[in-house]
């Protein structure tokens, strides 16, 4: 199972990398979203999969699965939500004012 999930993580990462290298800003943002999917799975996998029961004390018996990675992922999910929301709005604000969603066109005019 771990092997399978790690391969999945690899695929997700590769896809995310390809997306983030795109010219279109939406593809880039989707790339960041896929990146976060991949890393959430990674954290969970690195913490060890299926090693115990649900980390609810009254509900199940020990041994419990590692709860700490879960807490970390939760934090990471919320943060990546915040960032995604921000960059989405940034993207459309940039489109409104610069008239392009193509990062090639958003190159910027460094002097000279």
């Amino acid at each position, binding site marked *: 199972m771990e092997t399978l999930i790690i391969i999945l993580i690899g695929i997700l990462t590769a896809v995310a990398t390809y997306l983030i290298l795109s010219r279109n800003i939406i593809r880039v943002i989707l790339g960041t979203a896929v990146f976060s999917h991949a890393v959430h799975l990674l954290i969970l996998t690195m913490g060890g999969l299926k090693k115990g*029961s*649900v980390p*609810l004390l009254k*509900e*199940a018996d020990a041994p419990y699965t590692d709860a700490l990675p879960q807490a970390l992922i939760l934090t990471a999910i919320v943060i990546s939500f915040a960032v995604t929301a921000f960059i989405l709005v940034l993207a459309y604000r940039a489109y409104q004012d610069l008239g392009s969603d193509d990062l090639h066109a958003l190159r910027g005019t460094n002097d000279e």
Partner: protein
Amino acid sequence: MVEKILLTALALFAFSIAIALYRIIKGPSMPDRTVALDMIGVNLISSIAVISIVLKTKAFLEAILILGILAFISTIAISKYVERGVIVEHKSDN
């Protein structure tokens, strides 16, 4: 016996999800994809219910309801997007 049946059921739900994914990728229209997404949501609900039985835990029953809620909200949002482009309106026409 029961476990085997449940795992079979799970595999079937997963299979349905895979089929729905095909529809999402294939389209051709956006409503087609929406229908398929809705279907994935519904199958996930079933899957969670079955997994809960397999894992002998009630911990995921909240997830079922939440998934129901969210599938609904997502469908509304996408439909409105397809229909009007705007999903939250300033002021209703009527």
